[in-house]
């Protein structure tokens, strides 16, 4: 669509003005905003930057970062589209409002007879009443139909009655579009734009390190003020805070509050089915302006609003639960005895298990684990797996494995186990270690078996017995063969407790001569199994057992062997058994100030009123031109509506009928 003749006559400013107010631009911007918004929903926003790096690789990570795709909605280009929309709408409103307002009031008294006749809705008829009667009757009838009416005497013997209903429709336009501007401006007040500006001017800088609050530099602190922010903070029960953390890109800022908040207590209530029913915190606000501290309980959907700061129940986490742990040694270096010690969630401490010291970092605690029950067919059947805690073991080199241990035993095939998950990175799934429990439901039995396997003398002893029995059947008294066999047997056990079946098979693959692999391999493995069984039963004191007990022992042996076989992958020198805990929770609060909120709400009200008026209050105009004739009057009725043409067809017809009825006996021309 080229408009050839507009170039010379308009100045550049005017042309820009018209461009901004054009419908084409409006539609383009609406759709552009829609498409831009999609990006932000497809790409999860405001995740840790390392996650993006892993997901996209270093090249695309940077491209996306430059494009602001990790926080689309505060990216400059997104704001630019939004501003352009506001600008365009403003221009539209500025340009159209004067005519619209005029249109609202103006009854159009200057319409010519010809144009009335030419209107799509137009009728003409004669009546016997006089001009004066016809005019006053018409006016009365139209007014009773809710029209605003005005008479204009025209040339001699002619009166034009102009009528309008629903002039407010035009106000609907103004309201709707004004609302968009108001909402966007209000929203802008509540956005983090001022933070970006301050950052750009170098007044503040985003902190990315994990520091104690007191150590965070001033440049990353925001003084209490009137600006908008949305921050969050986790406060353990019984503790107090006077700051909130505002997340920004890959770091945060500290927003100082003009008061202190204490979380006295945090509660979760559950339905009978185990699902959470409510999250509540008892808060106390301390402020010098208060005569007494303000106490209030907040819950989801019921925030506390104080001095324009709204405090919401957003989440919860651990507040440093105290844990009592038993460390069961899993290898020789870690010793033979269990050690009991205490620690806390989020506490890091050096542990000396064996040669190396490792750092134990307790990361999480959960008092309940309501999970689908794997033993039920119905996946929706839930079960409480009891408390669990998560921790990391960090070696000197800084590498860490992550663990998740359950406090209660978990049944599997009818036997009870302690469950411990392990993984190398958060991206992996947990692999589980199953430690079998003895008939008393404890780890003692397993630990005893493990000690036996580590006991060189006992292993040698059993190896000797087994060697003698084996060679007795072949009737052999070759010294070296005896020694070799005994050594092999002990070595197999050693290899097994070091690296499980994997190491044994590896040994078979790499060390045995090619020719003997086929025959010796399986033989080695069955000898190892025999050794393990002998070591186990050798150590059991009770001799006369029932068959049932015997079966149970065999299964226990099997489970123990399986568990020991996976130690090398488990990677921890000890198993940490949770024996007791003091649960301390932290309430996750969101603290926000949004000074733009009333403006936005006002805009929303405008918008709703505007849209409904625009759609459901049609502006209808009628003109009645009464013309004096010899024996009565001639009436010309014309009308138009700015929407719902179909309904207006009938409406016009009805009005015409009414007028014919009321204005005097008629003879339709």
């Amino acid at each position: 669509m080229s408009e050839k003749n507009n170039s010379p006559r308009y100045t550049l400013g005017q042309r820009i003005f018209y461009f901004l107010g054009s419908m084409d631009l409006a539609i383009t911007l609406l759709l552009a905003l829609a498409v831009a918004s999609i990006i932000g929903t497809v790409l999860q926003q405001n995740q840790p930057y390392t996650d993006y790096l892993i997901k996209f690789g270093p090249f695309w990570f940077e491209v996306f970062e430059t494009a602001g795709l990790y926080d689309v909605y505060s990216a400059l280009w997104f704001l630019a589209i939004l501003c352009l929309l506001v600008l365009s709408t403003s221009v539209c409103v500025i340009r159209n409002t004067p005519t619209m307002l005029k249109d609202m009031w103006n009854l159009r008294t200057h319409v010519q007879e010809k144009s009335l006749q030419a209107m799509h809705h137009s009728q003409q008829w004669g009546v016997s009443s006089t001009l004066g009667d016809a005019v006053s009757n018409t006016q009365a009838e139209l007014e009773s139909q809710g029209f605003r009416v005005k008479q204009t005497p025209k040339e001699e013997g002619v009166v034009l009655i102009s009528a309008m209903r629903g002039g407010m429709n035009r106000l609907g336009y103004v309201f709707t579009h004004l609302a968009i501007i108001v909402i966007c401006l209000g929203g802008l007040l509540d956005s983090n734009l001022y933070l970006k500006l301050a950052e750009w001017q170098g007044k503040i800088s985003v902190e990315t390190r994990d520091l104690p609050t007191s150590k965070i530099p001033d440049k990353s602190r925001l003084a209490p003020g009137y600006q908008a922010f949305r921050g969050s903070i986790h406060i353990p029960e019984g503790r107090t805070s006077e700051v909130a953390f505002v997340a920004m890109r890959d770091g945060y800022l500290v927003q100082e509050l003009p008061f202190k908040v204490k979380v006295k207590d945090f509660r979760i209530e559950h339905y009978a089915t185990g699902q959470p029913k409510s999250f509540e915190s008892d808060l106390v606000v301390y402020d010098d302006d208060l005569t007494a501290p303000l106490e209030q309980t907040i819950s989801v959907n019921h925030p506390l609003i104080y001095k324009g700061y709204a405090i919401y129940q957003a989440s919860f986490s651990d507040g440093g639960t105290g844990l009592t742990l038993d460390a069961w040694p899993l290898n020789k270096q870690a010793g033979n005895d269990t050690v009991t010690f205490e620690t806390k969630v989020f506490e890091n401490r050096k542990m000396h298990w064996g040669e190396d010291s490792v750092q134990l970092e307790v990361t999480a605690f959960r008092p309940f684990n309501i999970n689908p029950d794997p033993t039920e067919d119905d996946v929706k059947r839930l079960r409480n797996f009891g408390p669990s805690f998560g921790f990391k073991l960090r070696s000197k080199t800084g590498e860490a494995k992550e663990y998740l241990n359950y406090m209660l035993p978990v049944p599997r095939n009818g036997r009870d186990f302690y469950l411990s998950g392990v993984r190398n990175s958060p991206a992996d799934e947990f692999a589980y270690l199953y430690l079998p429990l003895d008939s008393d439901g404890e780890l003692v039995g397993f630990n005893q078996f493990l000690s036996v396997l580590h006991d060189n003398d006992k292993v040698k002893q059993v190896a000797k017995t087994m060697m003698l029995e084996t060679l007795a059947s072949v009737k052999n008294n070759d010294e070296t063969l005896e020694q070799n066999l005994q050594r092999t047997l002990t070595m197999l056990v050693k290899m097994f407790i070091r690296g499980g079946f994997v190491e044994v098979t590896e040994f078979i693959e790499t060390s045995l001569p090619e020719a003997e692999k086929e025959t010796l391999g399986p033989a080695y493995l069955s000898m190892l199994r025999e050794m393990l069984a002998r070591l186990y039963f050798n150590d059991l004191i009770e001799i006369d057992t029932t068959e049932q007990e015997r079966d149970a022992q065999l299964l226990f042996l099997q489970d123990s062997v399986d568990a020991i076989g996976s130690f090398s992958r488990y990677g921890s020198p000890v198993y940490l058994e949770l024996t007791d805990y003091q649960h301390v929770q932290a309430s996750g609060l969101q603290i926000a100030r949004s000074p733009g909120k009333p403006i936005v709400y006002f805009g929303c009200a405008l918008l709703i009123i505007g849209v409904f008026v625009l759609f459901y209050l049609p502006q209808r105009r009628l003109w009645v031109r009464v013309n004096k004739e010899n024996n009565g009057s001639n009436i010309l009725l014309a009308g138009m509506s700015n929407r719902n043409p179909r309904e207006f067809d009938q409406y016009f017809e009805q009005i015409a009928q009414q007028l014919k009825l009321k204005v005097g006996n008629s003879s339709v021309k």
Partner: protein
Amino acid sequence: MTIKSGMINNETSSPVDQWLWRGLMLLAAIVLINRYIDILDSYELSITVFTAVCLALLGQNWPGFRRHVVVVSVLSFLGVQRYGSDLGLAETDFLLNFILASQSAFMWMSALFVMATFAYFVGLLFRSPFTEKVGSALTWSAMTMGMVGLMVRWRESYLISPDVGHIPVSNLYEVFILFAVITALLYLYYERRYQTRSLGGFVLLVISASVAFQLWYAFEKQAHEIQPLVPALQSYWMKIHVPANFVGYGAFAMAAMIGVAYLLKSWRQEIKPQGILATALPDLSMMDDLMYKAISLGFAFFTVATVLGALWAAEAWGGYWSWDPKETWALIVWLNYAAWLHMRMTKGWNGRPMAWWAVIGLFVTLFAFLGVNMFLSGLHSYGTL
């Protein structure tokens, strides 16, 4: 006055009927409030009054709607009465087991909607006004059963346990039923107003599709079980936000299906102007008009719903707008239809592209409604698949 097909039906009920109806609604509201004044809070009071006013307005010139409200009330009452305080009766009481228990009522609704779809299409293709009338009757019945089911389910949730009880608009399964009922109601309104039944099959097609999904969802995922509300949903805003949203979704879905009919007709008109579809479907201009009506209705209600959502978010999440995926997709839907409305006004585009756009709009809406729950995670993850 006889009314031609396609002409607006402005028929009004007699003043006696009108006043009787208004009086009945007033009486119902008074009885309800009087009886439960001790436990109603101010929000519930205003919702009660608001509902009564809406019903009075909708029904004053619409006999079909009046019948619907009365039948739904009677049947729901009967259902609640039958239950007493024993949820177990759902399986032993004949009336509950086969008709009134929410699951049974929903099954009836589903079957009737599918039958109605067939009836409408048969009526359209064989030019049989009677069969089309049957389609209308079936749609009314389906809608009635759906509504009764929702009412009874509301009660059932309280029978499970008082703290579990809630209005059945809280998860994906429940809102699917709401969607079917509301879309049918909107359609029936326009069917009467425009005196045309030939679009029924098209609109009912989208309802049948949602019914199919809802059945799959119930049988495959056991989604029909009543679940207690997570804390974020325990808010009076939910009661109005969700229905307002579904008036929007329903209207958009209807517009899209009229768009389909429009495209079919304009295509057949070119190829075979005397063919059944070309002659049986309403005028293009009328469908265009209806499409516009539906989209503006949807837009208005969607605006209200989004604002209500923002008010709720301000209370539950600490900010009226968080760019959560569901929120953002509501905005996308809204912007899309705003663009549609403006495009229509510039007149540059004639009916066909606008019809295509309305159809595409349904997919955008569908994504906002379902896709977000399926593919995107966010604060709004209440109904996952």
